[in-house]
């Protein structure tokens, strides 16, 4: 089994935490105008109902998100 220096490992964790902290902060910013469940292809990845979901273009693919990113998308989430 390999050996690993705890201090060196901690340096890697610190670097990774720095990257992830940047990601988390940007995620909060983006979520103000773009639904976080909407992927780069404008498909919906949510497991719950949403009135912005449209039929997928190809069978078996994810539904399309029809939100225009201008209104508060959270009002379209179906909560019942």
């Amino acid at each position, binding site marked *: *089994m*390999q*050996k*690993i*220096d*705890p201090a*060196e*490992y901690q340096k*890697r*964790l*610190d*670097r*990774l*935490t720095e*990257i*992830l*902290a*940047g*990601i*988390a*902060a*940007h*995620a*909060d910013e*983006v*979520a103000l105008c*773009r639904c*976080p*469940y*909407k*992927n*780069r292809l404008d498909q919906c*990845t*949510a*497991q*719950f109902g949403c009135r912005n979901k449209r039929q997928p273009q190809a069978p078996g693919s994810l539904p399309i998100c029809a939100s225009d990113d201008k209104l508060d998308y959270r009002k379209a*989430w179906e*909560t019942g």
Partner: protein
Amino acid sequence: MAELNDITNEFIRQEIAEFIERPNERERIINLFARARAKMQAIAAALIDGDNDLVNQLTKESLDEGIEALEVMDDGLIAGMGIVGIKFRQNLIFVPEVLACARAMKAGMAHIEPILSAAGIKPIGKVVMGTVKGDLHDIGKNLCIMMLRGSGFEVIDLGVDTSADKFMQAVEENQVHLMGMSALLTTTMPNMGKTIEAFIDADLRDQVKIMVGGAPVTQEFADEMGADGYGKDAMACVALAKRLMGVESR
């Protein structure tokens, strides 16, 4: 100084050429990958692509071949995650893609964990995380999990729509002392309190610190429910988890 063509992996070359705009970042990333082994470049490429099966396979192969775990982290996993962070910052990818990359990172780290364990390096703590009963909104929880894992916590993810019984079972079975619940809906928020009550009724409340979070949740609500802490976002969740585990926050 290395050049783009010094990088052997075509996917990585394309990623840098197309997406890394800032000169200082470009130079640093080119230098990093130009000196990295082809296999490390392949791990980074698979991670950027969110391909957890391939990251899993390549990481295992690399360690079996005797490549140092720290090198796999430096030149493969963390290097790949660095590019993911830059693409996300530039709005070229979004949260679902980032979470796929984080899952790929976890698949790679799974092979490094036994090496850490053998070296006596333990996780900061073990945390059970779940979205409360009736709630299917999991992005916030998933971002918290990504941050917790990246900070050195072991996380047991119970997913969405988690009943009090499921939380209690996970805490007992895994000997966990920290648990996080999230809710996005005002209609499901009370289920956090019901879950805490279930822990009290089962005489388990003293065994576990409970943190809560989610868009409608406030510190006041957390206090009323009898939670041990409230985190307003993923960063706060990590700081809170460390505080509750008695670990100094960096």
